[in-house]
C-alpha cells in the first residue's frame, strides 16, 4: 500500500527552493505549505463536497403521440429547486435541479402529446387545452460512494404530479420516484463533481422515462383518457 509522508516544519527562512515572490505570498511559511498540502490532498482524494447543476439537454420521447393539447404549469419553487445537504466529514453538497425542469418537461410533453404549452395558472388554463399537468419535487436524496461503500453516486427524486382538466378540476394526483446512479470510476479525480452531476442527470432521465411508460396506466388518468379519446 502506498503511503505519503509530508514533512512540514522547516523554519520560514530555510533554504527551500523558491523565489522571493513565493515567500511574499507565504508559501515558504509553515502555514502556507500546510495549506498547499491540504489543498493538494483535498484535490487528490476528491473530498469536500460538490455543487452541481443538472445539464439542460434532454431527449424527446419516441412514443406514439396522444392527440391532446396539454398544458404544463411549473411553479416558481420547482424552477428554483436546489437540494443542499451537509454530510458529516464529507462537506457541503448541492444539486441544482430547477434550471433543468423547463427543458425536461417541454421535451417530455412534446414527445407525448400533439401539442403542449406552458401555462400561468393550472386552474384557469387557456380554453383550447384538454388538460394541465403540474409537477412538483417533493424530496431529493442522494448518497456518495464513501457512505455506501460502493462505487456509486446515487440520486433519488420524488415527484408529485397533478393533472387538471381543461376547466381546472383536479383529476389525478400521483407520486413518481426516479433514480439515477453514476460510477465514480468513470470520472477520475473530479468524481465528486462529475459523478454527482451524472447521477442527477440519470435521475431526471429516469423521471422522464418512468412518466412516459406510467402515464396512461395511472387509474384516474386512464379513465380521463378513455373519455377523451
Amino acid at each position, binding site marked *: *500500500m*502506498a*503511503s*505519503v*509522508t*509530508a*514533512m*512540514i516544519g*522547516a523554519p520560514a527562512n*530555510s*533554504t*527551500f*527552493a523558491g523565489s522571493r515572490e513565493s515567500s511574499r505570498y507565504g508559501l515558504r511559511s509553515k502555514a502556507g505549505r500546510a495549506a498547499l*498540502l491540504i489543498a493538494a490532498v483535498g484535490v487528490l482524494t476528491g473530498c469536500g463536497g460538490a455543487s452541481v447543476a443538472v445539464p439542460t439537454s434532454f*431527449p*424527446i*420521447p*419516441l*412514443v*406514439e403521440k396522444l392527440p391532446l393539447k396539454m398544458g404544463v404549469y411549473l411553479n416558481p419553487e420547482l424552477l428554483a429547486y436546489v437540494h443542499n445537504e451537509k454530510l458529516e466529514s464529507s462537506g457541503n453538497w448541492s444539486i441544482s435541479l430547477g434550471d433543468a425542469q423547463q427543458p425536461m418537461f417541454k421535451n417530455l410533453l412534446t414527445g407525448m402529446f400533439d401539442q403542449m404549452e406552458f401555462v400561468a395558472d393550472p386552474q384557469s388554463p387557456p380554453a383550447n387545452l384538454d388538460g394541465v399537468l403540474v409537477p412538483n419535487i417533493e424530496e431529493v436524496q442522494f448518497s456518495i460512494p464513501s457512505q*455506501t461503500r*460502493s462505487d*456509486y453516486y*446515487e440520486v433519488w427524486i420524488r415527484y408529485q404530479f397533478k393533472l387538471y382538466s381543461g376547466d381546472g378540476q383536479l383529476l389525478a394526483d400521483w407520486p413518481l420516484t426516479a*433514480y439515477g*446512479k453514476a*460510477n465514480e*470510476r*468513470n470520472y477520475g479525480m473530479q468524481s465528486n463533481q462529475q459523478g454527482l452531476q451524472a447521477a442527477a442527470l*440519470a435521475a431526471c*432521465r*429516469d423521471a*422522464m*422515462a*418512468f412518466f*412516459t*411508460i406510467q402515464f396512461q396506466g395511472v387509474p384516474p388518468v386512464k379513465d380521463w383518457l378513455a373519455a377523451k379519446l
Partner: protein
Amino acid sequence: MTRYLRLTLLPLAMAAIAGLGGCVTSTVQEIRESATGMDATDSIVVLGRRGRPRTGETELDFVSCVSRNMGSGSNRLNVIDEQTFTDALFPWFEPRTAPVNTSDLPELMAIPALTARLDELGLRYLIWVQGSTKRTESAGSLTCTITPGGAGCFGFLTWEKDSSYEASVWDVRNGISAGKVSSDATGTSYMPALIIPLPFIAPVRSSACSSLANQLKSFLIDET
C-alpha cells in the same frame, strides 16, 4: 561533455522506460448461435449494461473503446455512438426500460415509432457489454517524502488487474441472439521508486478492449 551526455541520455532513458510496461495475458472466446453478416448500409451499436441499484456496471470508457475500435482500422463497421443511440431511442434503452433478453425484442419492435427509427439508423446488431476491470492483488510499499531540501520517493509497488468482459450480440432484424464473445485479460504492473517513481503499467483494460473489438468484428463479418 558530462552535461551534454546527461542532456542526451536522460530523455533517451526516460523514453526507453516509458516504452516498457507490465505483461498482459488475454483470452478471447466466442459462442455462435446463428449466422451473421453485414451489408454496407448496416450499422451496429455497443451498449453498456446499466443495472438498477448498485449492481456492477461496465466502465463508460471501455464501452466507447470497443465502439471506437470497431469503427476504425481494417474491416471497420458503421458504429452508432452509445449516447446518440440512447437519445434517439429514448426512453426504450434507459436502465428502467432496456430489454434484458432477446425475448423482450418482439414487444419493443411492436412500437411503430421505434421500428421506424431503427430502420432510419440501419441498425442490424445490438451489442451489450457486461463486465469490469478489477485490481485483484497488490503488494509492496512506497513512501514519498517532502523536505525543505527536496522531495523523493522510495519503495516498490506491484499490483495485478483482471479484466473480464462479455459481449452479447443481438440480431435486431431477426429478433434473435447471434452469440456471445468474451474477453479476459490479466496483467501485473510494477512501480519501483528510487527518488523518482517509475511506473511499468500493464495495459490490461485496453488489451481486453482491442481483443474484444477485433473478435466482434470478425464474428459479425464472417458469415458462418
